[in-house]
């Protein structure tokens, strides 16, 4: 009740104010933000970032708890009643919402349940690629000399083989293509790009004053690498990794499409199956394709937003 404040109250307040004014104004420490702090300020208000982050969050929930989104079983087959049954758009979130495929399985349930495989393959491949490619690139960039020459030539060798071809050759030897196998096949040739980005980034950071200072103070190689070089060199790798995550999800679907992908429920397999009945029932292919494209899009948008936020030139 502000109107009831007595004059006495006001007096004490004024006195307090005067006392505060009498003291030297505490200089507010100038807040220095790191590169990432700056980027975060930029990203919070960037609608591309917010949109892609929300989409990815939704996809993560979908992958973890698909049962939240559909009550139907993706492997339930009912050929007698549901063969190529067209979508019933009134039944939102029901098993027959997006129709049934040529084996009488719910297209909607399969589109939801396919999320997990795609995200696991994408995240797993990215993790392996960043760890291995990042290590190779860091060693090549930091030590230079013959280590760099050897590592860079090895990277060139792996880069010479077309990505999709190499993955196909590797996957063709496995009849049981589980998620770790697909991750291994994609990461086998995928690490080269990360290695190159990391190498370039480390070479730039290596010559900076603070690294020289750490060296002069007698810091060990490991300490310099992991405490000084790595944190400052990792930004471009994170950007490339985020975008690649989307690309790997697309690659997994392409391999499934070629009949060399995951066993089990996956968007690639469903799109491939849908291709067989494309003349009569386009919807079977449409919905897994939309899910796949949205997922790839979300990761690419996230990566690009982060890149723009980290790059002072675009500010």
């Amino acid at each position, binding site marked *: 009740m502000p109107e009831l404040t007595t004059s006495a109250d006001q007096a004490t307040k004024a006195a307090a104010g005067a006392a505060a004014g009498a003291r030297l104004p505490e200089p507010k420490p100038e807040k220095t933000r790191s590169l990432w702090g700056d980027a975060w300020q930029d990203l919070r208000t960037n609608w591309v970032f917010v949109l892609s982050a929300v989409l990815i969050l939704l996809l993560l929930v979908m992958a973890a708890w698909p049962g939240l989104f559909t009550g139907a079983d993706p492997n339930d087959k009912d050929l007698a009643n549901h063969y190529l049954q067209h979508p019933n758009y009134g039944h939102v979130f029901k098993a027959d919402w997006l129709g049934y495929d040529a084996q009488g399985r719910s297209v909607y349930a399969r589109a939801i349940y396919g999320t997990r495989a795609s995200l696991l393959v994408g995240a797993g491949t990215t993790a392996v690629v960043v760890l291995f490619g990042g290590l190779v690139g860091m060693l090549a960039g930091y030590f230079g000399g013959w280590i760099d020459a050897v590592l860079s030539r090895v990277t060139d*060798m792996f880069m010479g083989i077309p990505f999709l*071809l190499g993955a196909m050759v590797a996957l063709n030897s496995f009849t049981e293509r589980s998620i770790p196998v697909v991750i291994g096949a994609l990461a086998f040739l995928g690490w080269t790009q990360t290695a190159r980005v990391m190498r370039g980034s480390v070479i730039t950071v290596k010559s900076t004053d603070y690294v020289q200072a750490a060296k002069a103070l007698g810091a060990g190689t490991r300490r310099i690498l992991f405490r000084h070089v790595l944190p400052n060199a990792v930004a471009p790798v994170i950007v490339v990794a985020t975008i690649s995550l989307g690309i790997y999800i697309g690659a997994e679907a392409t391999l499934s499409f070629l009949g060399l992908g995951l066993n089990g429920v996956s968007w690639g397999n469903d799109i491939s199956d849908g291709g067989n009945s494309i003349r009569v029932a386009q919807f079977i292919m449409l919905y897994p394709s939309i899910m796949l494209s949205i997922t*790839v899009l979300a990761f690419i948008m996230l990566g690009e937003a982060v890149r723009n936020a980290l790059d002072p*030139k675009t500010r």
Partner: protein
Amino acid sequence: MGRYVARRLLQMIPVFIGTTLLIFLMVYALPGDPVRGLFGDKGASPAVLRSLRHEYGLDKPVLVQYYDYMKGMILHLDFGTQVASGRPVTDILGEAFPVTLRLAGMAFAFEAVLGIALGVVSGLRAGKAVDTVILVVTLLLISIPIFVLGYIFQTVFAFKLNLLDPSVSDATDYSQLLMPAIVLASVSLAYVARLTRTSVAENMRADYMRTAVAKGLPRRRVVGVHLMRNSLIPVVTFLGTDLGALMGGAIVTEGIFNIHGVGGTIYQAIIRREGTTLVGLVTILVLVYLFCSLIVDLLYAVLDPRIRYA
């Protein structure tokens, strides 16, 4: 310049050997057997398998096989024999390569011309509506997998509108290859456009651009010479490595549109585990890739005289 080319060619030798050895090891070290594959589920007697393996040299250690193969390839241009058909691999390559080269060439032309044009338009009007539209469209093209795009094109242009043939006949003339080439080019086109846009938009703010405008040069010259020459370097790098990728990536496109090119042959070779065919095809792709990256390096000097080769 001559010395630089010589050094680059010498550097290629270990990469070439390493890449071919890698693909050789991948094909032979992984489980599976092309000779057993010849007989399907029925199988054959061990004696027959053994004699066939001996005939194709598959009973020797992998490294010896690799050495023999490379020796035959380099000295006699002999890429080996396809196990399934018994024909020399060079015959099969001779049939498949022209088709894929035509397809990849058309796709490359689309990608370069349309990609750079869109990128320049977008970059010159950075932040305007045209720019946003081009950015959104290219982003969509990148995120839609190429096989989905292929089906969309087939459904819309062939089945619904009846404008084009849904698949390509053995004649593989240019009009039939139009749709597959566009599909094959789409993702790279989007990359080229975005790369050009970033580069152009960045260089628009450069000092030399302001100088060029201030001294009264016509806009055509400012954009066409000053801007383009400086902006094209990253684009040329991408385009150079992409021709090889287009040929290798044609597997999916060739499958959808029923084109009998390198992609289909590679696919068959992988499925049937025919190491020799596969290694021969991949070797040529690797050569294309190495050759293109050499050309790119030499083009740098043309585009940017500041880059010199010692």
